[in-house]
C-alpha cells in the first residue's frame, strides 16, 4: 500500500496554537490559517521536512500512538488528500 510519498514543511514554517482539542495552525509560506483536527497535526509532524509514503507515516505515528482505524490505508489517503489540497503537504 505504498502510494506516493509526501513531505510537509519544516516545523519552523508553521506556528501552532492548541484550542480546546483542535489546532490552529498558521502556515508561513502561504499566510493561511487552518484549523486542524486529529490526526492531521500528527501526520504533519510525521512528515515535517522528511518525506514518507502512507506506510512510513503509519510507522512514524505508530511509534507514539495506538492507531485506531478500520482501514488505515484509506483513512491516511483521505487525510493526505485534504492536507495536499490545503497546501500543507506536497508530493515529495
Amino acid at each position: 500500500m505504498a502510494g506516493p510519498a509526501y513531505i510537509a514543511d519544516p516545523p519552523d514554517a508553521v506556528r501552532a496554537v492548541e484550542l480546546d482539542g483542535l489546532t490552529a495552525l498558521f502556515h508561513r509560506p502561504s499566510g493561511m490559517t487552518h484549523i486542524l483536527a486529529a490526526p492531521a497535526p500528527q501526520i504533519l509532524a510525521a512528515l515535517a521536512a522528511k518525506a514518507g509514503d502512507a506506510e512510513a507515516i503509519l510507522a512514524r505515528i505508530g511509534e507514539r500512538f495506538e492507531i485506531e482505524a478500520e482501514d488505515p490505508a484509506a483513512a491516511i489517503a483521505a487525510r493526505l488528500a485534504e492536507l495536499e489540497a490545503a497546501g500543507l503537504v506536497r508530493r515529495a
Partner: protein
Amino acid sequence: MTMGDDVNEPGSEGFAPTRRVVLALGAAAASTVVTIRPALASTAGSVLNCEIPIPEPRSAGQYIDAAGNLVAPGTPGSFPPLGRPLKGEEVKKLLAGGPSPAGVDSQAAQAYANYIRRLQAGMSGFTCYASLQMPR
C-alpha cells in the same frame, strides 16, 4: 464551515511527544482541515463568483417562511429549500428587486431574498452576501 464529527481529542501530541495514546484516523469521508477564509476581503474578485446555499447545509431540510426565517418543513406559507445554491449574480439581481432566479416563483424568491438578508457571520453564504453588501 464543516468539521468531521468523528474525530478524537488530539491533545498536544501533534507537536510535542508525550505519553502513548489512542489516535483515531477517522473515516475516509470525515474532514480534519478547515481553512480560514477572508470574511470581506478579495470582494472584487469573488463578488460574481460566490454562492449562497438556501438554507445553509447545517439546516438542510428546513423550509423558509415569507420573512426569511427557517421553519419546520410543511409550515403553511413557507417554501421548500432551493435545490441549488444561488450564484452571487442571481442574488444581486434578486436583492435589487430584479427578476426571480430561473425556476423560482416570485413569492418563494422573496422569501429566499429575506433569508439572505438575515444571514449572519459564520453562516454559510454570509461571506458572499457580505461581499454583495456594504457593512452595516
